[in-house]
């Protein structure tokens, strides 16, 4: 072991200097017991390369679109579209990153964001009604399927995804309102979506009712 003459302490390990005062240590005995007590932990560099690339592409796209707009001056407001596009991508990206440890939750969030964005895009592009007629019903049914399949494939336990499946199926009823309030002309996607969701809901309640009650009790204990 080594010794610091200033602090009058013995120092374990093979370091050259006293950790307390920084003075050079002297060996008291020949060569015994210099083994380390703690491993050396190398610094961990955080890998944010994907994030940096995404930031870089976003800024480039917006800058180029602004430049082209000024040079060519087209009828459509391209920079606005590019900015919305970039914004949509980021929103999706952030949600996936944020909820990546809980896949059912990430799916649910994506459904909400994508459906809101689709309405927004539709409205910005002269409202042709495609978002309510096709996009939203399809995305809801797809989400229900994807959630069930991933949950089974990844062996996520029923109670882990049941609340999200429930919420997702409730979303699936929403297109009924589109029909009721005559917001859509093409009816069959909405009808299919509502039917599938009702079947899903019935399945969840009939087979997993106790699980939902337990899950709710746990989540809301005071």
């Amino acid at each position, binding site marked *: 072991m080594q010794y610091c003459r200033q602090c009058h302490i013995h120092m374990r390990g093979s370091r050259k200097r006293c950790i307390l005062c920084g003075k050079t240590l002297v060996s008291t005995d020949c060569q015994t017991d210099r083994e380390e007590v703690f491993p050396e932990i190398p610094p961990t560099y955080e890998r944010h390369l994907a994030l940096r690339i995404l930031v870089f592409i976003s800024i480039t796209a917006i800058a180029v679109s602004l430049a082209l707009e000024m040079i060519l001056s087209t009828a459509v407001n391209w920079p606005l579209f590019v900015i919305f596009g970039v914004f949509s991508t980021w929103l999706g990206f952030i949600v996936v990153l944020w909820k990546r440890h809980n896949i059912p939750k990430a799916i649910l969030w994506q459904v909400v964001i994508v459906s809101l964005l689709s309405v927004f895009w539709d409205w910005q592009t002269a409202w042709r009604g495609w978002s309510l007629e096709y996009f939203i019903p399809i995305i809801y049914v797809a989400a229900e399927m994807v959630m069930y399949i991933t949950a089974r494939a990844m062996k996520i336990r029923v109670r882990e995804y049941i609340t999200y499946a429930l919420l997702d199926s409730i979303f699936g009823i929403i297109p009924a309102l589109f029909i009721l309030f005559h917001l859509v002309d093409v009816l069959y996607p909405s009808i299919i979506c509502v039917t599938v969701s009702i079947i899903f809901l019935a399945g969840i309640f009939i087979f997993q009712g106790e699980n939902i009650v337990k899950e709710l009790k*746990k989540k809301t*204990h005071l």
Partner: protein
Amino acid sequence: MKQQKEIEWTSLEIASKLYPATWSLKDPKVFRISCELDQIVSMAHLQQALDLTIDDFPLYRCVLKRGLFWYYLEESNIQPKVSPEAKAVCAPIYMGKKSDLLFRVSFYRKRINLEVFHALADGTGALLFLQTLICHYLTIKSDDFTGIVLANEHSSLSSVRENSFDKYFIGGMRKIKKPGKPKKAYQIRGTRLSENRMQLIEGVMSTHSVLREAHKYQTTLTVFLASLFIYAIGSEMKAKKRIHPVVLAIPVNLRQYFQSVTARNFFSYINIGYRFEKHTDPLSQVIRDTEKLFKEQLTAENLNDVSNKYLAIEQNMLSRIILLPIKDLILRLASRLAKRQSTSSLSNLGIITMPPEFDGIIHSFSFCTNANRPQMNVCSYKDVLTVSISSPFRETDIQKNFFRLLSQAGISIEIAANL
């Protein structure tokens, strides 16, 4: 659909409710208890020992989940794995999102480390886990030991996982005379280490020689070490900062005051403060004042008051129905304010006992917590006293002052450091 096993869940007791809300990368609320053996640790045997230990402590299989109003622990089927030590000391365990176990077992050469997220257990609770693990390990490793049981292993499974707070305190606030508005305590400043790492300096010495020194001042080991630490911090204070007292927050294990063997959290705090008048306050005076404060605060009645106050807040209907994200925010603010009322903390895990059969095999135990300011942790095993000072700062002046005070008193010290 398949029939599935009933899933057990437990609400957190009051002391641990704070940790999931207030953890951060700078202060991940993790502590470590290590045991150093006389032999290199075998990974395969340690894994076997862990597999046995986890069955004795089902609560350690839990993951932390967010409810609408509170966090709760939920049983999982994750199998804990031992690993060679490859992360910084007291690296974050619970990071908000991912559901993972709340403890980690690692080893390096002759050391076995147990690191625990504080919401799961306090030092004494985690020690019980580590003691059991070491017992299993040594029994598996060598055929010499059979039928060895830990001295304190009379506890049934349910008492190990009980919520002792609810059992012993009824809540409700008795009017406590407040000794004026709490003053802002002196805050230690320094250069932070990169990546929120922490500097751990462990001093190993003879318990008897330190006790002999403490007895010279007619005081106990904890009071003596607390006074030395206050004195070491005071020596680094700038003159104009001396209007602030140096205050040590000292967790008190409530198990000794109330019959309990819970392996979860069961502790309270006392605050010991000293105001340096001039640079020349003698050590003896610091010890005398500290001793007096300990005597005043360390009564069952006082501890009762503090814990009942906590419970009163928990039982308050209004504070219950606040949604979790808002609760998180309030708790974060409150803990930041509370932090300003103390300079540092000192936690004494006490005397660790192991079955006498392991006498020659176990070298020492050590105990440290992650630090967002320099703080001290103490534990002892037989005649080996380990004093660990963890710090987020590069500077080591306080540590130097502290250990030099001991070595000047003629105590022989062996120091180990992680950086």
